[in-house]
């Protein structure tokens, strides 16, 4: 599975890349909303792990733009903004799943597998 991980926090990107690669996925990293959109325009992804608070264009905006793509990836929102209103907004804008930070890597991996299974 091709996975795009979007986060501005290096300490998240490093373990996620390691774990997802180890689980057999192809991983591409993006540190800003703009970088994420560029990656999405270059090739199709099966899943996007998306942070909401990004420098410049925020995660919600990336989510809205991704929705308009012909081959849109599934989206797992992974954010420190764990408020109910944020969760509802993310789901309303088309995210498939929502996890609040801090998260457990096992929960994350099983969530990724679940989304992969529903492909």
């Amino acid at each position: 599975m091709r996975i795009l991980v979007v986060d501005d926090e290096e300490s998240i990107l490093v373990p996620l890349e390691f774990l997802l690669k180890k689980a057999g996925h192809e991983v591409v990293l993006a540190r800003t909303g703009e970088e994420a959109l560029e990656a999405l325009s270059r090739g199709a992804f099966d899943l996007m792990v998306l942070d909401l608070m990004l420098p410049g264009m925020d995660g919600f905006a990336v989510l809205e733009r991704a929705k308009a793509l012909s081959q849109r990836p599934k989206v797992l929102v992974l954010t420190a903004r764990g408020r109910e209103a944020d969760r509802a907004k993310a789901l309303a804008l088309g995210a498939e799943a929502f996890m609040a930070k801090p998260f457990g890597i096992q929960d994350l991996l099983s969530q990724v597998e679940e989304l992969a299974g529903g492909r």
Partner: protein
Amino acid sequence: MRETLRFLGALLLGLLLVGGTVGLGLFLLLQGEESLKKELLRLAQAKLPVLLFVGFLFTLVLAALLYPVFLGYLAATRALGQEAEILLANPGHRLRLRGPFELRALADLINRLAQEKEALEKEVAARIAEAKSLLEEERKKLAALIGHLPHGVVLANPKGQVLLYNQGARELLGEGLGVGKSLFGLLDRGLMVHALGLPEERFLTQGPRGPLWLQVVPLEGEEGFLVLLEEAREKGGWDAALLHRLKDKLAGLKALAEALDQEARGTPLEPLLKTAKATAEELGQLVASWEAPAQAAEVLAEDLLALLAQALERETGVSPGLSLEEEARNLLVQADTYALARGLAAASRDEEEAFLEGRREGNLLHLTLTLPKSPMGPGAAHPDLPPLLKEAVERSGGSAWWAGSRLHLLLPAREAPRLPAKSGPPPRAEVFDLSLLHAPEELEEAPLEGLLYTAFDLETTGLDPEKDAIIALGAVHILGKTVLRHEVFEALVNPGRPIHKASTEIHGLTWEMLKEKPKLEEVLPGFRLFLEDTVLLAHNGAFDMAFLRRVGIDQPPLVDTLLLSYLLFPDLQDHRLETLAERFGVPVIGRHTALGDALMTAEVFAGMVPLLRAKGYRTLGEVLRACARLPLARLKY
């Protein structure tokens, strides 16, 4: 001048009268006595110089008789009248016994009457003071209570003019706050009007010295409102951005620890990484439950919808259709209603119709604003949310997004507890001295007693506004006839150059005393704030204004006590400030210090107000126009 003309007129009349009578007598006596007539005519021609000399002597005698009557009695009587008027303002003043005997007797009689009046007034005042002391006791308690409240408290009239405030309010709102000044210059007017409709709710706003919580309570049965202020820094609370960053970093650390733990199984590092993982787990659990406090109050969903609809109608002219699900009616919604209303108005500009719908979604209120004319078709890229709306939603702890022609808003909510209805009247503040409650429309039409003035004075290095510099500023607020001695401004200024000895002799300030003081440009902003919204008042103000104009302060109108003195006492000779102070019973303290002179000017003006009123000058406009007609008013520096 008037007396001189009248005197000359009377002299001429006297001469004509005596000359005419003598002429007529001679004419009648000499009827039919032609030879005698001729003889007399001849004699008169021969003795003309003697006759002219006698006529001159007669004129001199007549003038000597008339002079004291006109220049002594009449002018002195007028001056006596003007001086007697001072008694109305200063009952302790006594007329000097001078001039002709009759006038001295009259002045003595007036003095005795004044003495009796003063005694009577003292007696009445003593009785009133006695009656007031109880009231004063209450007032003191209230003032102490307000003064020691941890909140800032301001009482204002419907026009937003301050009637009363405490130290807390002064600390939060700064030097721009003062009795009689407008609150609207310091706080968002729209927010105040909005908050007035929601007296139970607190709003976050930007004050002159930082963020504030603001609550506005209308005064029951009175025209005016109470503003409660609190600094908007929650003690021990978390800043949302900081908390999110912390969660972000912790999530990274926890993921790293967990990944390493998986990799290190069976190696000597395993126990270390197990501990790291467990610690990260615990930390994660601790932090997960923390949320930054929302910066908004709670409001009933039903009230919120009505408020938003009103605001939309007011700001955009569109009256939106409303619908609120029965289940959502009793929700207490966390919302900064003012910011939200303005944000929604910004989002629905140029719309012709709108529909606002509210429903409950778990612990959220879901508001949908449908704008049929919205530029977006389905699938089109959505414009960014208006910044005002973004901020409002953020403060309320909610979220918002566009979906086609619909704007969705989610706001945190909870079921409102069912409280028994409050019985009895709502709590109210004890208030006093509300002379400003009926504020006039136009400054010029305002009665003199209803205005806020700033009496001010400057000390300078010399008399030339072009070359000399300001070295001291003093000012005090005066509300009608009441000098607000606690609202003063005083500053010494470093002129950046030595001071002439002659000038030092007047104000006692030397170059050494001022070297360490701030520069004028550092002092002026505070002075400007102090003057704002007030009518300027000075003695010989043309001089001070010439200096102020050079540093960019020109705030007409100016009331000048020197001109007022000429207006009230045109026949008195001395119009200097200290003489006026003496006339009005004002103690002369700190003469030629800027604040001392400003205070003296204020007190003198307070004494002048009733005299001006007695002369028929009721409004500021009437006084200014009368002053402008005085020849002295044309004097320029």
